[in-house]
């Protein structure tokens, strides 16, 4: 099953996707192994619980401070970058962002693009958009390269090919790159290196994401281990960075705690191999680096999350992936079942702002509310509370004001609303409550054997013969 690349899953079909994923033992083994590995790695980086908690609180404050003056910082970032010679573009929607990138592509008559890892470009479906217009986009991160060869989407935001094992990659390379079958990972990586190397300098444009955009100095900071990010941002004559409007931080020093939280939480590394800080294009006397650097700042629903004080916390996210690594749901169904660019807990709280609650109605409820995500989140996003809040937005009357999230009321049902109203009346009126319980126990034989999905995997509950109140009264009466 997992070896057949099929059409990308959609979030609206979440329940079906999840059922299919659960029935795939290979997929479940791959994810279980990978998540255990990543949880261990993270734990080993935080031996001192106090330091971790203080650092998380600090990270949260740095992000909250940046958001508390977001418009001002974005303008400062724009001004500093422009002064440094970087061209800054703004896009409200993914269509606008794609059109901006396409315009730059046309200006340079570019035919070939090499990409470092960028989740925002996935959000834009940039490869698809440019592919339709005759421009080749090649992914250069090893994991992204692998999922691109399989015509799939990333299964994880940090480790895109985490759903595959070495044997599956070996078969893929053998089939697609016509190399001898080998499961030796060193050899497989060398095959990837050789295949991609020529592409770095043949590419007309390099595209990358951004981990932190620093307003103070006009600097784009990128972390990575492979060197493909440095290649993509240094070798081609033009570099286009795409990022969300929330990625800005105020001062250069603000990245120190965030960087530490990011790499330790994500992959359990004290630091990544490369921390790449880009503050401008090649200067006249420099011998390498891109002649042109562009930054595309994308909104795509972020300003909607921003508008509400509680939901705004979604934008604290530094995309470390720890919430998915620790999520029991994600571990069991994998990344593709969500049908969204961002899977797992962060995906469930951020995607409704991007696609609307109507398209993502089952995501906020795809949680056991165990709270693990909120506990590990390095910037202390209260993910479970935000899930609960989105559940509420999904069942509010569609037209009720104020409107916080596009697609409000996607799960609204008049019947359910009535049931809950009745429930409230019943529970706030003692006489009614007692009467109802009395009726429930005396008529218990009428309880149907099948009550919707509840009885798919369980037997139907049967009320007791007498209410607890009755039993208690009798018991006390005896004394």
């Amino acid at each position, binding site marked *: 099953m997992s070896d057949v690349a099929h059409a990308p899953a959609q979030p609206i079909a979440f329940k079906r996707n999840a059922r299919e994923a659960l029935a795939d033992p290979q997929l479940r083994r791959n994810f279980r192994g990978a998540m255990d590995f990543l949880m261990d790695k993270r734990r080993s980086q935080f031996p001192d619980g106090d330091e971790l908690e203080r650092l998380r609180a600090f990270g949260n404050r740095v992000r909250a401070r940046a958001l508390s003056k977001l418009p001002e910082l974005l303008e400062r970032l724009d001004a500093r970058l422009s002064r440094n010679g970087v061209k800054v573009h703004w896009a409200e929607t993914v269509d606008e962002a794609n059109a901006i990138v396409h315009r730059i592509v046309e200006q340079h008559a570019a035919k070939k693009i090499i990409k470092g890892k960028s989740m925002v470009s996935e959000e834009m479906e940039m490869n698809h958009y440019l592919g339709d217009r005759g421009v080749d986009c090649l992914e250069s991160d090893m994991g992204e390269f692998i999922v691109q060869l399989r015509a799939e989407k990333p299964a994880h935001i940090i480790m895109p090919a985490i759903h595959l094992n070495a044997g599956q990659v070996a078969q893929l390379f053998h089939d697609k790159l016509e190399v001898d079958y080998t499961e030796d990972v060193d050899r497989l990586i060398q095959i990837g290196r050789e295949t991609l190397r020529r592409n770095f300098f043949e590419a007309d444009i390099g595209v990358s994401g951004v981990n932190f955009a620093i307003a103070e100095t006009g600097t784009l900071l990128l972390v990575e281990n492979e060197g493909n990010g440095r290649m993509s941002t240094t070798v081609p004559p033009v570099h286009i960075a795409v990022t969300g409007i929330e990625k800005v931080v105020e001062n250069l020093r603000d990245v120190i705690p965030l960087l530490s939280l990011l790499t330790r939480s994500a992959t359990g590394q*004290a630091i990544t191999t490369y921390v790449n800080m880009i503050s401008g*294009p090649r200067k006249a006397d420099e011998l390498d680096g891109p002649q042109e650097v562009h930054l595309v700042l994308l909104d795509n629903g972020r300003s909607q999350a921003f508008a509400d004080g509680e939901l705004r916390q979604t934008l604290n996210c530094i995309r470390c992936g720890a919430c998915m690594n620790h999520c029991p749901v994600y571990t069991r169904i994998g990344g593709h079942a969500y049908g969204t660019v961002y899977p797992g807990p962060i995906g469930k709280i951020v995607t409704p702002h991007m696609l609307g609650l109507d398209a993502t109605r089952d995501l906020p409820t795809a949680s056991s509310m165990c709270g693990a995500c909120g506990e590990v989140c390095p910037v202390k996003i209260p993910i479970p509370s935000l899930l609960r809040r989105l559940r509420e937005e999904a069942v509010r009357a569609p037209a009720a004001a104020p409107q916080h999230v596009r697609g409000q009321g996607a799960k609204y049902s008049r019947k359910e609303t009535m049931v809950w109203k009745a429930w409230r009346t019943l529970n706030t009126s003692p006489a009614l409550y007692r009467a109802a319980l009395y009726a429930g126990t005396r008529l218990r034989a009428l309880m149907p054997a099948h009550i919707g999905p509840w009885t798919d995997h369980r037997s139907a509950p049967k009320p007791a013969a007498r209410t607890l109140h009755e039993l208690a009264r009798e018991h006390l009466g005896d004394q």
Partner: protein
Amino acid sequence: MNAKERILGKLRGSLQGTTPIVDDYDIELLNEPWRYPPAERVARLRQMLGAVHGESQLSSTTGWPMQVIEALAQRNIGELLIAPTTPHGQQFADFVARTGAPLRLKAYDRPVEEWKDELFFRTPASLTGTLGGIAATGSLVLWPTPQEPRLMSLVPPLHMALLKASEVLDNLYQFMHAHRWADGMPTNALLVSGPSKTADIQQTLAYGAHGPKELLVLILEDA
């Protein structure tokens, strides 16, 4: 109204009536857990580097050229990319000329466009300086210049870097502060911690992804 004005307008509207959060930066938290006695800084850096397959050797301001030559000989590498106008590039070129070491030196002295193919496929090793090092994470700080361009530390499979022991500081906070980075950054600055690597296939670590397969740091103890 353009996209920028519309986005900023929405954000401003959402912030109405709120006050920005004040900066209560916690220097102690970023500094105290990551401090080392001066005599242990280099050892910590070497240990952290070693843990990610970064090789290091102790050396001196006069001894390093010989160590570079030996390292290349061990690997059967006959040529080296240098930055000829840097002090260390000059020192090394002089050393090679004086000793007649059988080594072809390649100078990065023209724009990359003029020799891309050679850089990518026929340049097995490079030698660069560093701005300094960070003990806490075992990182080198690279600050590429017109004399010593960015790709020197990225494209050749073996990257050798010179690090002055006196330039190894405890942690990133101290380094940023001491070098006043906030006052202005170069077009590109880097922290490099080990050779390039990936764990993208079944979480199995493999070195030599897209950047150098080997990183050799020569630490000049008397500098």
